[in-house]
C-alpha cells in the first residue's frame, strides 16, 4: 500500500510545476521514471532477496556444515563447520546418490530430445486445418491440466495394493492384462538380426515404451510451438511458393528457422519440468524431511541443481549456435 502512496506523491504535481524554474525539482524526469520502475518491481526484489538469494546462500551454508539436533529439544539445531566433508560423503559413501544423479541426468537428456521432436511434430500436425482441430488441441493439452502428483501417487498406491496379493483374483487379472498384446521381444530380436545397432534399437524401444510419459510431458511445449507457427508471416510462405520450393524445402528453409528460437525456451522448460519429477529430487526431499539429515540433503539438491544448470548451459550453447534470429 505504501508503494501506491509514493507513486501518487511523485505523480501529482506534474502539470503545475511546468511554469516554475526547473531547479526546484532535484530529480530529473529520467530519475523519476527509474524510481517508478523500481517501485513496480520492488515486490519481486524483496521476494527474490528473502526467498531465493537468502535461501540459496543458506543451502550452501547447510551443505558446508554439520547440523546437530540436540536430543530432547523440541526444535532448533546447531551448526558446526564441516568443510567439504558432506560432499565427500555424498559422492563416496552414500549408496545411491551418484547412481540416481547420473540416471536422472541421462533420462532427462533422452526425454528432452524426444519431447522436443514430438511436440514440434504434433504442433505441425495440429496447426494444419482439419475437422475437429480444436477438439484435438484440447485433448492434447489435457495432460497438463490433469497432471496432479497426488492423483498419480494414489493410483500407484492402488496398483501396489492390487499386486500385493490381497486379492489373488484381481492380481491374476492384472497380470493377464500385462502379457496380452504383441510380443515385443520378437520384434526387437528381428531388428537385431537385421544388424541395426543395439543402442539405436534400445533408444527406439525405450521411446515407444515411454510414449505415455512423452505425450503427457509435452503439452505446454506443443502449445508454444503452435503459437510460434501461427506467428510466422504468411508472406514468407507465399515467397517460397512463388520461388518453387517443395513443401520439404519450405519446412527446412522457412518453418524450422522461424520456430528455432522457441526450441531453447522449450528445452529449458522441459529440463526444469522433468528435473522436478526426477528421482534425485525425491532423494533429497526424503533425506531432508524424512531422515532429517539437513546437510546431506542440501548437498544433494545443490549438486543436482548445478548439474542441471550445466546440462542446460551446454545444450543452450549448442542449440543457440544453430538458431536463426529473425530480428
Amino acid at each position: 500500500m505504501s508503494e501506491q502512496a509514493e507513486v501518487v506523491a511523485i505523480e501529482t504535481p506534474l502539470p503545475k510545476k511546468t511554469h516554475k524554474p526547473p531547479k526546484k525539482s532535484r530529480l530529473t524526469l529520467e530519475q523519476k521514471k527509474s524510481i517508478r520502475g523500481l517501485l513496480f518491481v520492488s515486490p519481486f526484489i524483496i521476494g527474490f532477496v528473502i526467498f531465493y538469494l537468502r535461501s540459496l546462500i543458506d543451502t550452501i551454508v547447510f551443505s558446508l556444515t554439520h547440523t546437530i539436533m540436540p536430543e530432547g529439544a523440541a526444535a532448533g539445531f546447531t551448526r558446526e563447520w564441516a568443510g567439504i566433508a558432506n560432499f565427500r560423503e555424498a559422492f563416496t559413501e552414500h549408496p545411491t546418490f551418484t547412481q540416481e544423479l547420473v540416471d536422472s541426468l541421462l533420462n532427462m537428456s533422452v526425454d528432452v530430445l524426444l519431447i522436443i521432436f514430438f511436440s514440434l511434430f504434433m504442433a505441425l500436425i495440429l496447426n494444419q486445418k482439419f475437422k475437429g482441430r480444436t477438439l484435438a488441441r484440447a485433448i492434447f493439452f489435457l495432460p497438463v491440466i490433469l497432471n496432479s502428483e497426488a492423483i498419480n501417487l494414489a493410483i500407484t498406491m492402488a496398483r501396489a495394493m492390487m499386486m500385493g496379493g490381497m486379492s489373488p483374483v484381481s492380481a491374476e487379472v492384472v497380470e493377464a492384462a500385462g502379457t496380452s498384446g504383441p510380443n515385443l521381444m520378437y520384434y526387437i530380436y528381428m531388428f537385431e538380426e537385421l544388424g541395426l545397432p543395439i543402442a539405436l534399437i534400445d533408444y527406439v524401444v525405450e521411446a515407444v515404451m515411454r510414449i505415455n510419459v512423452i505425450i503427457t510431458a509435452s503439452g505446454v511445449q506443443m502449445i508454444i510451438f503452435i503459437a510460434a507457427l501461427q506467428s510466422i508471416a504468411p508472406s514468407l510462405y507465399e515467397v517460397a511458393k512463388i520461388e518453387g520450393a517443395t513443401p520439404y524445402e519450405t519446412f527446412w528453409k522457412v518453418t524450422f528457422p522461424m520456430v528455432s528460437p522457441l526450441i531453447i525456451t522449450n528445452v529449458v522448460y522441459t529440463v526444469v519440468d522433468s528435473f522436478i519429477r526426477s528421482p534425485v529430487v525425491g532423494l533429497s526431499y526424503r533425506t531432508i524431511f524424512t531422515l532429517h539429515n539437513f546437510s546431506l540433503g542440501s548437498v544433494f539438491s545443490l549438486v543436482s541443481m548445478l548439474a542441471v544448470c550445466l546440462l542446460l548451459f551446454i545444450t543452450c550453447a549448442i542449440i543457440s549456435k544453430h538458431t536463426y534470429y529473425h530480428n
Partner: protein
Amino acid sequence: MHDVQDVKEMQAKQAGFAEKMKAKYNDKRFVNERHRAIRQGKDLLIMLFRTALVLGLSYVILGPLIGIVANSFFSNSDKYSPIVYLIPQNPTLERYALAIIRMNYWEVMRNMLIYVAGLTIIQLLVCSMVGYGFARHSFPGKKILFACVIIMIVIPSHTVMLPLYTFFMDFFGINLLGGSNAILGGTVPIIVMSFLGTGLRAGLYIYIFNQFFRGLPKEIEEAAAIDGAGSLYTYLFIMMPNAMPSIVTVTIFSIVWQYNDTFFSNLFMVSPDIVISKQITSLQANISNLDRIYDPAISTLYLYAGIVLVIIPVIILYVLLQKQFIEGVERSGIVG
C-alpha cells in the same frame, strides 16, 4: 492378307489413339486436371495419416481417463464379471456417495477453490505489475534483476526448500509468541510468497507479462501521460485491459498449477481441510479402514470416483475457457 491389313489398321489406330492420349496428357487444358488428381491423392494420404495419428494419440491420452470414469460407476458384480468392459451392467452411484462423505468433499472443495482463486488473483496482480515494471521502465540494475527472474524460472524450488521451511518455522519470531508452528500448517507462507512475486512459478508469469507489455505500442502510455494519468493509473486502467490474452493465460496456468500443486502444500504442511489433493492420497486407506472394504479391487473403485470428483472443477474450467486459452497463449507473448 485381309487379316494382316486388319492388324496393321488396328495397330495404326492404336498408335493414333496412344498419340492422342499422349497429346491429351500433355495438353495444357488437362494439366490442371492431372495435377489436381495427384494433389487430391496426396491430400487423402496425408489426411488418413493425420487422422490415424491424432486418433491414436488421443486414445493414449484419454484411455486411462475413460477407464477411470467408467470404473467409478461399476458395482461389485460388474467389477468381477468377465463380460463387462467399460460399460457397467448395474451402474451405481454408491462410489460417489461414499467418496463425497469420506473426503468431506463439499467443504474441502469450497476451501480449495477459495484458496486457489485468492492465490491466482494475488499472482495476477503482482506478476503483471512486476512484468510491467520490467517492460516499460528503465532503471539501474534492470538487466541483473531480469536475470534474477530467469534464475527463478530455471532453479527448481526444490533447491531452496529447506531454507524456506526453516524461514517460515521461525517467521520473525512470531512462533515464539504463538506456540509451535503458528505459521506453518496454514496458508500464510504461500500467500506471503505470492505477494512478493515468488509464488508458484511466478517467474514464468512475470516473463509472460513482460514479453506482452513490451509488444504493446508506446503511444498508449504517452497519450495517457499527456492526459495526466499517473503511472499506477496507467498500469491498472490502461495497460491491464489491453493485456487480456496474457491475463487469461496466466489465470488458467495459475489455477491449474496451484490446484495440482503438492510441493508447496507439503512443504508448508497446508492442512488437508484446504488442499483436496491431500484427501485423495488417503482416500483409499480411509475407505478400507473405516468402511471395512478390504478388497483392493473394490476400494480402488472408490478411489476412481474420488479422482473424478477432484478433476471435475478443472475440467469444467478448461472446457469453458479452452478456446480463449489456446488463442491466449498464441497472443500472450510467450513466443515473444
